[in-house]
């Protein structure tokens, strides 16, 4: 199974990391769109298991969560979909999700089952580094990497705690706020990337608010090892619910344009 190290270590440019809500808008379409993203040049996948109360997400991803849940997505089916993605291509997969779903599934069993399906890491949006020990033993036992968030207001002291416990990559939040497309990239991202790179050897990826190939290029130039794009891509799904062919074509085209901008 391909690791983050395999991918980040072999790339001479920033990685293209699209985000999808698993099962959006339904199981089969979601699997197709993810395959399209892989074919279009995604280097790593960031996938979310839909949750009823996504407090770290803006309207676009909230709507995707609702679409997916309404179409019958469950935690177990999400595991099955991930298995199918891995059958199609061995690509690293990071989960981004909320704690209650893991807690109800059973922490150890969750990590074991999802590691077996091919997941490389689980970033829990509502679990801070202070409580990371609730999942770390299970993640370690399952052989997974760890990914934690750093945001523009994270203190140096907390950055130290976070980098010490991260083995996969740092998920750097580009803006104060929830997920959602923004028109420009915050000026503070560059210095934050530089600071993080000086404190850790794990890759530093940037997400939240990135919506254009130019943004991705800018962030790559600032030194990011990966660019995570979510709401912009999820919006393509939302806008083409009636035409799956167009949905796939536009997702593919967008990802290719980002890849091109990353060089």
């Amino acid at each position, binding site marked *: 199974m391909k690791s983050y190290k395999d991918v980040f270590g072999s790339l001479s440019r920033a990685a293209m990391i699209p985000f999808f809500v698993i099962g959006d808008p339904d199981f089969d379409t979601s699997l197709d769109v993810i395959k399209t993203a892989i074919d279009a040049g995604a280097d790593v996948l960031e996938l979310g298991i839909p949750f009823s109360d996504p407090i770290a997400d803006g309207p676009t991803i909230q709507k995707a969560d609702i679409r997916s849940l309404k179409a019958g997505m469950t935690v177990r089916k999400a595991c099955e979909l991930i298995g199918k993605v891995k059958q199609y291509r061995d690509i690293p997969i990071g989960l981004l999700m909320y704690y209650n779903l893991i807690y109800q599934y059973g922490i150890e069993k969750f990590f074991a089952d999802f590691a077996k399906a091919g997941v490389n890491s689980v970033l829990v949006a509502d679990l*801070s580094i202070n409580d990371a020990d609730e999942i770390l033993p299970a993640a370690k036992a399952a052989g997974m990497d760890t990914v934690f968030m750093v945001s523009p207001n994270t203190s140096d002291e907390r950055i130290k705690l976070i980098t010490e416990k991260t083995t996969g990559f740092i998920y750097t939040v580009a803006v104060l*706020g929830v997920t959602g497309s923004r028109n420009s990239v915050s000026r503070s991202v560059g210095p934050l990337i530089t600071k993080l790179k000086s404190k850790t050897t794990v890759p530093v990826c940037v997400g939240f608010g990135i919506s254009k190939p130019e943004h991705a290029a800018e962030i790559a130039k600032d030194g990011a090892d990966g660019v995570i794009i979510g709401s912009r891509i999820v919006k393509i799904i939302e806008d083409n619910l009636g035409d799956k062919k167009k949905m796939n074509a536009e997702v593919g085209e967008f990802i290719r344009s980002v890849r091109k901008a990353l060089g």
Partner: protein
Amino acid sequence: MELKGRYGDFGGFYVPEVLMPALEEIEQAFLKYTKDEKFLKELDDLYKYYAGRPTTLYHAKRFSAYVGFDVYLKREDLLHGGAHKINNTLGQGLLAKYMGKKKLIAETGAGQHGLATAMIGALLGMETKIFMGSTDVVRQSVNVHKMRLLGSEVVPVSDGTGTLKDAINEALRYWTATVDDTFYLFGTAAGPHPFPMIVRYFQSPIGVEAREQCINQIGRLPDIVTACVGGGSNAIGIFSGFINDKNVRLVGVEGGGKGINTKEHCATLCVGKVGVLHGSKSYLLQDSDGQISETECISAGLDYPGVGPEHSHLKDIGRAEYVNVNDEQVLDVFGILTRMEGILPALESSHSLAWVLTQKGKLPASTAVVVNLSGRGDKDIGIVEEHRPLKM
């Protein structure tokens, strides 16, 4: 974070990293200013001259005769704004001011917390924004109008069932983007640490006063103290005064809605399972995957699938018991108390009264029960009229 914010295994601060600095800052300020004499004096004066503390403990004699034992009402309904919520908003509002914050945000269900926040925003000269579920905006429209008159912006939230849970989600999202200059004035004893601790502290005068009043007026401690439980702030406020009095039974009453065998209720502690929502580990109404349930209850202030972590702990260690009553029982007792005592109880508070009524004929005549009358029912007369129209 200096403290762990745990009640047994419950509580904690399960929030995105971006909110951690703000929670740490609030915890530090709270620990500092609750030892600061100037702060405490200013708060005391506001409690006394602005809000109307202490509230009375009233022996409801006709209602007592009706149920067959002594019922005392802790009259939080007499406070400015009409509910216990102002105890907390004065405390947190003042804290925000001492911290140098200029903007307040809050969630609200029944509109009572939103109203109490709007009043404090006006009083302290702070900009306030209130998030409120769209269902609640309609069913508690009088309070929406009051908040707007007081200068607050009311933001309707139409996600989910448009109730308290959805309002909290949206307030948290908004706060994530504005943590630099905005104070989230959380309305109940739930949410991430330090809110359960802070809200308990600012609501504790209810319990302190009630205990002293029992000793002075009844000559002893009560046998039972009961309160309705939404997020749990009025209940923890009054329970906190009696927790160490092991012989005093503590009874929290949840919204049974159309019955706990249906999906339409909000009896979290009665039928929920432990999980993590809105920053804390506590009992939750949820499905087997952990998706949070949509609740329904006649009383907007109780209509929430979570509950404060200290209540979960009190339940598990057996120090407090949690029960529920359904909408019809609530409407019945609303009418009874109104006609018998000339007091319109809030539908939230009517839940604890309805439980008291279920004890008619079961408790000895010598029993003394203290009911936390958390608020007045003026805001609810439209709902009552809708369910039980008066014949003209």
